[in-house]
């Protein structure tokens, strides 16, 4: 009788399950939690309370966090607006700019592998009479700057292109994109939630006008994010999307999430200090995993460029093995799949399809998201386990058998259902 159940055992010291899905979210760093704790209990004040020490204390903590975030990205503290997360930041940036600059133009440029927070926001604006260009990406996942230049016209008010992709980790050429935007007098927003704290990101050097930031991707809390809004050269104006008490200089009303903001600030402070060494560490782990998988398996390939990529990201296709069945075999390892079967829509990843991957290969992909708390022993275990399961599932795969026999799968008349 054949078995798929893995015989690879976790070595002593490796605790199961292993979390390797840090693009989805990351655990809170204990140093961040420690900084947050007093703001839940003794320092619980409302940062908008102007007439007692509870309020002053909270306000001071918020302003300190603003400084910590600004320092990480090369901004001024006054340019940081707190939000509930990067989805809100993306919505505020895109809708707020679209509304504020409506008289100047109605054209927005984005690209096809953006997060849904950007794509769906743009789709909504199309219903309100805005025109949106969705740039394609090349096979390596990056946009072509010539495409961007060609797409700009005298009605273009905003370019919104992510700094790092959440699935394949590729880093778009934001510095060049921002330069082009500034030459044409177009505002540049970037969803930087996966990039900030992971790779060098500087709003001045990278010519960024507006940037979305999240807490929980950088070992901070969920439910808190920020929006960088440039105040000089050019001064960016954003129409508020949430009305109320006029917090955050009128751009985002609502009582500030003080403990969350303190956590985001602390997470940024740690990232500023440790980013370079952490990036080298994660790159080492990532390449070790990649080498293991590539040396022991055939028909595997990396999705997206390796040259311009987040250090902790590895997105690989294990051709002729379906992604969900692979996840089932490595069920003590938390990773993500581009397979349709793991999504509610039964459609494979639109990001992978945008690279030109066939649906069959997109179904076979796994995203490994390495983070601060992963160890080499974990990587070695995960590598061995994936190799074991992929080999067993290929013994079960009619496609693998056919390819090994020299049959061209594209020549078969499949009955799609």
């Amino acid at each position: 009788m054949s078995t798929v159940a893995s015989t690879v055992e976790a070595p002593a010291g490796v605790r199961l399950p292993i979390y390797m899905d840090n693009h989805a979210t990351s655990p809170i760093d204990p140093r961040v939690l420690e900084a947050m704790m007093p703001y839940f209990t003794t320092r619980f004040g409302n940062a908008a309370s102007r007439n007692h020490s509870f309020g002053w204390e909270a306000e001071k903590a918020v302003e300190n966090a603003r400084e910590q975030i600004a320092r990480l990205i090369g901004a001024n503290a006054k340019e940081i607006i707190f939000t509930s997360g990067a989805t809100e930041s993306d919505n505020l940036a895109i809708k707020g700019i679209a509304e504020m600059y409506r008289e100047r133009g109605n054209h927005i440029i984005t690209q096809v592998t953006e997060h849904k927070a950007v794509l769906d926001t743009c789709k909504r604006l199309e219903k309100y009479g805005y025109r949106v260009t969705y740039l394609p990406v090349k096979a390596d996942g990056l946009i072509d700057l010539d495409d961007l230049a060609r797409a700009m016209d005298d009605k273009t008010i905003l370019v919104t292109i992510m700094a790092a992709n959440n699935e394949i980790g590729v880093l778009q050429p934001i510095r060049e994109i921002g330069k082009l935007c500034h030459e044409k007098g177009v505002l540049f927003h970037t969803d930087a939630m996966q990039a900030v704290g992971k790779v060098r990101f500087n709003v001045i050097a990278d010519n960024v006008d507006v940037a979305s930031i999240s807490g929980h991707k950088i070992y901070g809390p969920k439910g808190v994010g920020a929006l960088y809004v440039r105040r000089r050269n050019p001064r960016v104006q954003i129409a508020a999307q949430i009305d109320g008490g006029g917090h955050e200089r009128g751009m985002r009303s609502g009582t500030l999430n003080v403990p969350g903001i303190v956590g985001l600030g602390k997470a940024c402070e740690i990232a500023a200090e440790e980013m370079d060494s952490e990036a080298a560490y994660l790159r080492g782990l990532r390449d070790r995993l990649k080498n293991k998988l590539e040396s022991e398996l055939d028909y595997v390939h990396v999705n997206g460029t390796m040259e311009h990529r987040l250090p902790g990201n590895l997105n690989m296709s294990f051709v002729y093995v379906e992604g969900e069945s692979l996840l089932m075999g490595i069920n003590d390892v938390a990773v993500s799949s581009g397979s349709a079967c793991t999504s509610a829509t039964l459609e494979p990843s639109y990001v992978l399809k945008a690279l030109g991957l066939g649906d069959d290969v997109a179904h076979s992909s796994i995203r490994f998201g390495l983070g601060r708390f992963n160890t080499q022993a974990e990587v070695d275990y995960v590598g061995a386990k994936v190799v074991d399961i992929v080999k067993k599932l290929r013994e079960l795969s009619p496609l693998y058998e056919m390819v090994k026999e020299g049959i061209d799968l594209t020549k078969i008349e499949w009955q799609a259902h």
Partner: protein
Amino acid sequence: MAYSDRVIDHYNNPRNVGTLDKTAQEVGTGLVGAPECGDVMRLQIRVNPETQVIEEAKFKTFGCGSAIASSSLATEWIKGRTVDDALAIKNTDIVKELSLPPVKIHCSVLAEDAIRAAIGDWKKKNGVGESAPAAAAAAH
């Protein structure tokens, strides 16, 4: 998604994995699904020409755990049955046995299709007419 114990059992220990000689007279092969849909099943049967009993059944599946389990279960169920009996297996039987959630019902449909395709191939090869089972199917 949480899998039922039955799905996990078939996934961990799939029954009747393998390949039969598709050129053999007594072997019928069904290949259903498509790689771009994320599942392909190949189900093969070896039929006793005198008794029309399925003496051997083998499968290979590219697909999710539920697809693997559905095809594994299908081979288990058709072994020892006559081809006409095997055609009586319905996808809803598979759904019930494996407690498949609604989004995985297509896996059971594919397994039923695979059984029919394998038997159809064997019948074609051996000049066996579509009689009783076809009538039964039409009656639904």
